[in-house]
């Protein structure tokens, strides 16, 4: 084995246009051949300790501080766990539908932001396009209609969150056992007014993602791709359900590894491995072991794992998607974009369905039952399955919290994608251009990772790319 001290080192830090911050390190030998490529997650540790000792009813609010990007997902997952703590197994129809509306609003805005403002520059201009145009401002200049759509779709989803959670920051809508407000007629009508437009734009975005994938299939198919297992929640009847369901895991050919597992028993099926070079853990399916049990989560996994989607347009889109791989799971990394836009269309279809449901104006909001010492809440966050697990003592204090966030589940797949792209596109090249380095980031962006929020205050976090030779000398540096 070659000593890594003899290798050149390329560092991309932090990865741009992903949520949070990450660093890619690529080790090259003297012939510029890639010997090792790794994604390091710059994760702030300590949240699970922070919440210990706090009253359980604060958890759905406190956990939003964990991440400024997907606070609603944490809010709802914690609330689902706390439902069980207060002895409530099934919410009132109004409470469940308000939470679902909040969740689909989150899904809609998050996927829209990712597609229009983070991913589309790569798809519209190419991975090698000059960095000066390969960004959201470039999209705004050349495709202002798309840039505006991205802004307005994101805003629509955010307004739904505000109406259901109370506000954008410190949302309090979901509480243990239910919700603290319903949706007024005025709020409902405000959202219905724009829903046709949102649906139309979602169809358009889906078409862009689908056409891009099919028209570039030859190039897209091998790009950062590999066979993998897939994990997601599915409904009792096998339908996609982003808010609630049972766990299903399938292998790369679509065979079920386990199915309809009550997620209260997740520890019997999923465990995590620590590796000395990364702060972030590596989850895997216990029965398959760490070598073969890693899996993907998120839009690609969900579309692959479900039997059908219960809204008509998204289901038609799913069938088209699955036809590309003859009904077998699609294992292409770049197919995440297409799957994500199927879910965007599904989300707006569900939002319409919910807005037309009079239960949203119901007044039966909260239930109570017998206190329990433990609760586990799972949901499908925009980036994948999110696990929240809490234990509470007799004084109502949280004494244990365990979270598995989507990006942790995708840790191994993202590392494999980085390795594959580095081997295929960088290895042996005499000159490592910015465009080549962007190939690495394109693969990571497909997963839409949330690399945990660091403080974002003014003056922090520039992008630094460093090339360091085997003696530790910096031979090139790029920063923006």
């Amino acid at each position, binding site marked *: 084995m070659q000593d890594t001290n003899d290798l050149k080192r390329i560092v991309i830090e932090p990865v*741009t*246009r*992903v*949520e*949070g*911050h990450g660093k890619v390190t690529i080790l090259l030998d003297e012939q510029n051949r890639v010997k090792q490529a790794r994604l390091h997650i710059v994760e*702030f540790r*300590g*949240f699970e*300790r*922070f919440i210990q000792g706090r009253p359980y009813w604060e958890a759905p609010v*406190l956990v*939003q*501080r*964990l991440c*400024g*990007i997907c*606070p609603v997902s944490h809010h709802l997952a914690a609330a689902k766990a706390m439902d069980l703590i207060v002895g409530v197994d099934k919410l009132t129809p109004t409470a469940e539908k308000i939470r679902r509306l909040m969740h689909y609003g989150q899904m809609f*805005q998050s996927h829209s*932001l*990712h597609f229009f*403002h*983070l991913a589309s520059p790569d798809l519209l201009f190419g991975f090698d396009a000059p*960095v*000066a145009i390969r*960004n*959201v*401002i470039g999209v*705004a*200049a050349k495709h*202002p209609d798309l*840039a*505006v759509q*991205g*802004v*307005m779709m*994101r*805003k629509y989803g*955010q307004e739904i969150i505000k109406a259901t959670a109370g*506000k*954008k*920051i*410190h949302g309090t809508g979901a509480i243990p056992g239910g919700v603290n407000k319903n949706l007024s007629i005025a709020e409902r009508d405000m959202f219905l007014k724009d829903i046709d437009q949102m649906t139309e734009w979602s169809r358009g975005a889906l078409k862009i993602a689908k056409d891009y994938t099919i028209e570039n299939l030859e190039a897209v198919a091998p790009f950062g791709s590999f066979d993998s297992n897939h994990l997601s929640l599915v409904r009792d009847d096998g339908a996609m359900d982003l808010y609630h369901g049972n766990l299903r895991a399938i292998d790369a050919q679509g065979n079920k590894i386990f199915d309809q597992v009550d997620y209260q028993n997740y520890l019997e099926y999923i465990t995590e491995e620590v590796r000395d070079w990364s702060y972030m853990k590596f989850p895997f399916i216990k029965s398959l072991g760490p070598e073969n049990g890693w899996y993907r989560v998120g839009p690609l996994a969900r579309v692959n794992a479900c039997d059908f989607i219960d809204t008509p347009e998204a289901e038609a889109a799913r069938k088209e998607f699955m036809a590309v791989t003859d009904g077998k799971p699609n294992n292409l990394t770049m197919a995440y974009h297409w799957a994500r836009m199927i879910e965007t269309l599904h989300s707006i279809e569900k939002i319409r369905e919910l807005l037309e449901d009079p239960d949203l104006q119901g007044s039966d909001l909260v239930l109570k039952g017998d206190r329990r010492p433990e609760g586990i809440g799972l949901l499908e966050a925009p980036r994948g399955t999110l696990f929240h697990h809490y234990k509470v003592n007799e004084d109502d204090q949280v004494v244990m919290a365990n979270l598995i966030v989507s990006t942790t589940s995708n840790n191994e797949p993202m590392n494999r994608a980085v390795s594959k792209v580095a081997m295929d596109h960088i290895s042996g090249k005499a000159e490592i251009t910015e465009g080549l380095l962007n190939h690495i980031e394109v693969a990571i962006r497909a997963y839409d990772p949330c690399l945990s*929020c660091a*403080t*974002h*205050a*003014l*003056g*922090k*976090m520039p*992008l630094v790319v460093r090339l360091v030779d085997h003696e530790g000398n910096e031979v090139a540096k790029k920063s*923006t």
Partner: protein
Amino acid sequence: MDSARRILLIGYGNPGRLDDGLGPALAAVAETWQMEGLTVDADYQLTVEDASDVAANDIVIFADASVNGAEPYFIEKVEPKEALSFSSHSVEPSVLLHMAQTLFQAKTRAYILGIRGYDFNEFGERLSPRAAENLEKAIAYVRLILDDPRLLDMPVEPN
């Protein structure tokens, strides 16, 4: 305050990360003022949809914690900037202003109010004592500029 002039104050940051919560803390106080013509918003960070809100106002003040800016706060006019790199995690005010101009033909004037913080690297919902003092001074300053926005373009002499 001239109510015909529309002013948006966005306080942003993560209140669960100590002094990173300075922006939202300022917004929380400003919201209680209930001033006509003033819209107050708070969020964990600036994101692209804020561009349409920026465009809907005459003046925007982005209030954020500052890691190494002047004490107790600084005010700085925002010039639109085409960002070469872009992260949705931290859309800079300058990029947001550029987006507002490009996408929504905004004529908005924008300013950053950077309130100096000191502790950022732990979870915790509290401001450090020095940051809390800086916040009080920033609040007094915002009251002044809301009464007379011309002060925004004048040198700051913090008390």
